[in-house]
């Protein structure tokens, strides 16, 4: 297993800075997602690791060995493209064989390895098919097999699920994750889909405008984002502006336009500084909630509601004029205009810089 490390990577295209001083280091066998909106530099970062782009400065290391100036064919990476990039004139078997041939693996060993990998991706029996004769999901798995059969140091996936329909995409997330863990290969995974990143990753690197804004485990990213745009990009959020007043015992008060809100303290923000309170819609409950010193309670009316299947997405206007997004259970749905009390605990919140 390999440790992949990217150090101070910079890549410009004419005047546009695509990647701006990006650094990250994986652990052995770890899957890190590069998550961000389109044009944030995540794909460029991946391509630099693959060797398809040369960085303007910065380096890429595999297990401490600098590979920055190596050609793609010298790098030992397995790459899966968004459009699969299968060789259309070759069968599934020949697609998988190509990489092994290039490495001078003997016929018999190659056959064994291909059989094994096709079994892993559940494509046994389709060896003689051409890519055009396969479904999207099957093509995707051929692409995975082709990348894995060479037993590369690093696996790179560039939005591998973007071209699949929703049901198949959900299935393939679990499939790729379990496959990656079984093989135990260090993986870099590019996606713009936050739910995909949350599900599949050991850690997520959130990128904006060429910079890695935050890197952390999915729950860190979700529960303790360091900036507002990370909070907004990953999951739904209520962001309430105010001023931080530090309290004893790891708590703080955010003085908002709707009065003081109890929250978990964030030491990164100075006492008295402007701050933003984050509370996720599913952390707010309809009703009074438990009696607790931690509780925040608001009364208001239902302004709008949207049925999402597993939850109902309410927009609730408090008497102080705050608009809160609240997720409720889809039973006994509240009518528009109904007055309601909502509550959330300080421990369900997070304070960000303003």
């Amino acid at each position, binding site marked *: 297993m390999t440790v992949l490390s990217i150090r101070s990577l910079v890549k410009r295209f004419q005047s546009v800075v695509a990647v701006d001083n990006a650094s990250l280091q994986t652990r052995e066998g770890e899957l890190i997602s590069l998550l961000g909106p389109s044009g944030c530099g995540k794909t460029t970062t991946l391509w630099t690791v693959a060797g398809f782009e040369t960085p303007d400065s910065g380096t890429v290391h595999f297990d401490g060995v600098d590979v920055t100036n190596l050609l793609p064919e010298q790098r030992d990476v397995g790459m899966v493209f968004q459009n699969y*990039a299968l060789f259309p*004139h070759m069968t599934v078997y020949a697609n998988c064989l*190509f990489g092994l041939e290039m490495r001078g693996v003997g016929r018999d060993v190659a056959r064994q390895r291909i059989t094994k990998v096709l079994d892993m991706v559940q494509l046994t029996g389709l060896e003689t098919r*051409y890519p055009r004769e396969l479904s999207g999901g099957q093509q995707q798995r051929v692409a995975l097999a082709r990348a894995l059969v060479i037993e590369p140091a690093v696996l790179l996936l560039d939005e591998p699920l973007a071209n699949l329909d929703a049901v198949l995409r959900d299935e393939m997330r679990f499939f790729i994750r379990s496959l990656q863990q079984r093989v135990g290969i260090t993986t870099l995974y590019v996606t713009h889909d936050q739910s995909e990143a949350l599900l599949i990753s050991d850690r997520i690197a959130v990128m904006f405008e060429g910079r890695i804004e935050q890197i952390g485990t999915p729950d860190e990213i979700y529960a303790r984002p360091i900036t507002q745009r990370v909070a907004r990009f990953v999951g739904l959020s209520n962001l309430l502006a105010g001023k931080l007043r530090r309290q004893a015992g790891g708590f703080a008060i955010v003085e908002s336009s709707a009065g003081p809100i109890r929250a978990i303290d964030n030491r990164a923000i100075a006492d008295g500084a402007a701050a933003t309170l984050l509370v996720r819609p599913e952390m707010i409950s309809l009703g009074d909630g438990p009696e607790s010193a931690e509780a925040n309670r608001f009364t208001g009316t239902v302004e709008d509601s949207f049925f999402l299947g597993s939850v109902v997405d309410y927009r609730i206007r408090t008497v102080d004029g705050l608009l809160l997004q609240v997720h409720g259970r889809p039973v006994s749905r509240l009518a528009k205009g109904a007055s309601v009390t909502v509550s959330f605990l300080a421990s369900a919140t997070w304070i960000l810089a303003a």
Partner: protein
Amino acid sequence: MTVKAERLGRSIDRAYQWAFRSFLVLAYAFLALPIVLILLMALNAGELLEFPPKGMSLRWFVALFDSEIFIKAILTSLQVAAVATCVSGLLGTAAALYFVRHAHRFREALRVLMIAPLLLPEILTAIALLFFVHQIGVGNRGGFGLYVGHTMITLPFVFLNVSAVLYNFDRSIELAARSLGGRTWTVFRRITLPMIKPGVFAGCMFAFVVSFDLFAVSLLLKGIGQSTIPIQLYDYLRWDFDPLAAAVSSVSILISLGVVLLADRIVGLRALRF
């Protein structure tokens, strides 16, 4: 009421279909009829090039195969077409690769230059080339100009066909091959070339058929005593007017058709889509 309207709609549909089919038949007839006529005239048992034929016979085909000048012309045409096709195939493919993938500064100029022989009247190209070969002192000896002329005229067909394929070429396939360990040349040979083969073959097919049929360039640039089918046919029709001319035409049509069928057999024109 609605039943009536539906019935009316259906009969309009039917009338439309009928009209469309008739049009197709007419269009194909317009294209195919001359060929059929030539074949029928070649099978004429009579002495003159005429329609309808006076009885059926293969005598003019026999006469063709007995005619040394025509056999020589057919062989010359085949040889010139083969050479022009191969050279155009190589140059046109290389030029298309450069044009689509690497040309930046002189891109438009290169494109115009490449397809110029297609845009200019053939006779102009021929005259210019005639001056050129005499200027460089080669002249009409050995038919050097003939080969060059045919290559020039057929080059755009390969260039355009290969360019079209390259425009739609998904570069990530080559990147995938490289990341699997393929060196540049290996990737070109094992991935790129097989994938652009349809364009190369289509271009070469055009090149061959066009070269086989070329007149003005051949007329001006042929070597002394050298003759291609169209030239020989032209010469022949000046003095004679018998069905031998139709037999020659038939054979040349069959050769063109043969090339298309052969290409279909070797690469499978329909299997070319991926």
